[in-house]
C-alpha cells in the first residue's frame, strides 16, 4: 500500500510539474492578453480625457470580450452560459465541457439566482470550473436535485467542481463533486455560505476548501480519497464544520484559521493524520506566524489514521478538544498530539486515545 501511495505521490509530482509548465505557458499567454488590455485601457483613458477636455460627452463602453458567455435560458441544455437574472434555472440534460470553448460550464452572475441541476451530470475535461458563483452574486442557491426526484447530480472532471465567490450561497444535494483535477468545492473570500448534503470524493488535491472565508457552514458532507486534504480551512475564521474526511492524506486541516467549530466530525483512515490544527506537517516547529487559535473540536472521531489522530502544532493556542474518540492511530501515543509545552493554552478534556503529554486527557 505504501509503495502504491509513494508511486501515487511521485506521479502527482510529475503531473504537478507538467501542470506548472502548462500554467507558465498560460500565464505568458495571459500576460500578452493583459498587455493588450492595458493598452486598450490607456487608449480609453486618453479618449475620456480628450472628450472631457473638449467638453464632449462620449459614451465610453468597455469592449465586449469576444468569448463572453451568453445568458442562460431558464432551462439549460448546454455548458457555456451565464445566469443573469434572479430567477429559477434548471438543467434539462447532462452537460459537458465539449459543449463550449469557455472555461466554465455555468456561471452565476446575478444575486438571488437559483440553479438546480436536477440530477444531471456536469462533466469537464480536466480544466475549468463546473459551476462558479461570481463575486457579488450573493444569496445564490445551487442544488443538485429536487426534493421529489431520486438522483442527485455529479460534477466531475473539472479543475474545480463548484466555486463560490459570493456571500450567502447555499450549495447542497450533490451525489459527488469529485474526480476534479484540483478541488471539489472551493469557497473563496465569502461570508455566510452553506455547503451541505454532498460528497466531494477523489479530487486531485482537495475535497472542500474554505479560503479566507468566515461564518461558513459545512454540514453533512463526506470527503474521501482526495489527493491531499479532505476538508481544508485556509485563513478562515468563525466557521462551522460538521463532516467526514476519510482516506485522504490529511482529513481536516485548520491552517491559519481561528475561532472555528469542528463538531460531530469523523476523520478516519487517512494516510497521515486525521485532523491538524496549525501549520502544515512539513513545517518543522511552525516558524513564522502560522497559527490556528481558539478553535473548538468537539464530539468528533479521529481514529485509524496511519500516523496521528488530532495534532495541534506548535504556537497554536487556546484550542479546546473535548468528547473526542481518537483511538487506534498508527504512531505511538499519537492519537492526540500537542506540540506545545504542557499543551500551552490548549485544553484537552474527556477524550479517548493516547496523548503525547499528560496534559491531554
Amino acid at each position, binding site marked *: 500500500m505504501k509503495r502504491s501511495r509513494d508511486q501515487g505521490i511521485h506521479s502527482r509530482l510529475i503531473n504537478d510539474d507538467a501542470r506548472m509548465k502548462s500554467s507558465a505557458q498560460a500565464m505568458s499567454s495571459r500576460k500578452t492578453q493583459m498587455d493588450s488590455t492595458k493598452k486598450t485601457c490607456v487608449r480609453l483613458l486618453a479618449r475620456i480625457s480628450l472628450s472631457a477636455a473638449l467638453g464632449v460627452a462620449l459614451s465610453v463602453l468597455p469592449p465586449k470580450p469576444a468569448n463572453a458567455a451568453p445568458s442562460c435560458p431558464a432551462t439549460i441544455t448546454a455548458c457555456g452560459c451565464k445566469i443573469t437574472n434572479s430567477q*429559477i434555472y434548471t438543467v434539462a440534460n447532462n452537460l459537458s465541457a465539449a459543449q463550449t470553448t469557455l472555461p466554465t460550464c455555468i456561471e452565476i452572475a446575478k444575486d438571488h439566482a437559483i440553479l438546480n441541476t436536477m440530477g444531471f451530470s456536469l462533466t469537464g475535461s480536466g480544466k475549468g470550473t463546473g459551476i462558479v458563483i461570481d463575486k457579488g452574486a450573493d444569496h445564490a442557491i445551487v442544488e443538485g436535485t429536487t426534493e421529489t426526484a431520486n438522483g442527485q447530480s455529479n460534477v466531475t472532471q473539472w479543475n474545480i467542481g463548484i466555486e463560490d465567490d459570493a456571500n450567502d450561497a*447555499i450549495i447542497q444535494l450533490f451525489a459527488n463533486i469529485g474526480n476534479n483535477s484540483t478541488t471539489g468545492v472551493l469557497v473563496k473570500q465569502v461570508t455566510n455560505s*452553506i455547503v451541505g448534503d454532498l460528497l466531494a470524493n477523489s479530487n486531485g488535491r482537495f475535497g472542500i476548501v474554505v479560503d479566507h472565508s468566515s461564518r461558513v*457552514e459545512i454540514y453533512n458532507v463526506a470527503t474521501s480519497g482526495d489527493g491531499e486534504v479532505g476538508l481544508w480551512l485556509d485563513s478562515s475564521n468563525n466557521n462551522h464544520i460538521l463532516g467526514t474526511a476519510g482516506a485522504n492524506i490529511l482529513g481536516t486541516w485548520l491552517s491559519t484559521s481561528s475561532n472555528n467549530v469542528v*463538531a460531530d466530525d469523523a476523520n478516519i483512515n487517512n494516510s497521515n493524520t486525521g485532523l491538524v490544527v496549525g501549520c502544515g506537517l512539513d513545517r518543522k516547529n511552525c516558524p513564522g506566524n502560522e497559527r490556528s487559535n481558539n478553535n473548538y473540536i*468537539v*464530539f468528533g472521531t479521529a481514529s485509524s489514521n496511519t500516523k496521528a489522530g488530532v495534532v495541534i502544532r506548535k504556537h497554536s493556542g487556546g484550542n479546546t478538544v473535548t468528547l473526542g474518540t481518537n483511538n487506534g492511530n498508527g504512531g505511538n501515543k499519537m492519537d492526540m498530539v500537542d506540540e506545545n509545552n504542557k499543551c500551552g493554552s490548549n485544553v484537552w478534556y474527556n477524550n479517548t486515545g493516547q496523548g503525547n503529554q499528560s496534559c491531554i486527557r
Partner: protein
Amino acid sequence: MKAVYGSIVTALNANGNKQFGVLFSNTTGASLINVSANRNNQAGLKLDSSTGNSIGPGGMESNGTYGIWLQSSSGNTIRDSNGNQFNNDTGIRLAGGSNKNRIASGGAPNNGKAGIVITLGSTGNTVTVTHNPGNGNPNSDMVDPNPNCDSNVWYNNLGNPSQACIK
C-alpha cells in the same frame, strides 16, 4: 444561554421542562449541535433576540407549542434539522421580525397546526430542502403571510403552501 457569545451546546437531551428545552436569550454566535428537546411545555428551542447562531443537527418534537421558535432573532442558520414534528402548534416558527435566517435541509411534518411559519413582518429568510407534509391546518405545511412572500425565499420544499411564492 443568556447574553453570551460563542458558546457550544452539544450531545444532550433537554426534555420535559416546564417552559423550554433550550433557550437562547440575547445570544450571539452560539452553536447547538446534536441536541434534542422534546415534550417541553412550551417550545423545544427558543431563540429570543438572538443573532448569528448555528442550529443542527437535531430535531424538537412533541412540545406544547413550537418545536423551534425564533422570536426577534435574525441571521441564524438552522441546518440538518429533521424531525421537528408532533408539536401541538408549529414545527418551526419565525416571528416578531426575525430576518435573514436560513433553514436548509430539514423538516417540520405532522404538527398540530403548521409546519414552518414565517409571520408577517419577518423578511429576508431562506427556506430550502425541507419536507413538511401532514400538518393539521389546510395549506399550512409552509406558511408565509407576507405579500408575495416579500423577500423570503422558499425553494425546493415539500408540503402544501399557503401561497404560490412558496415552492
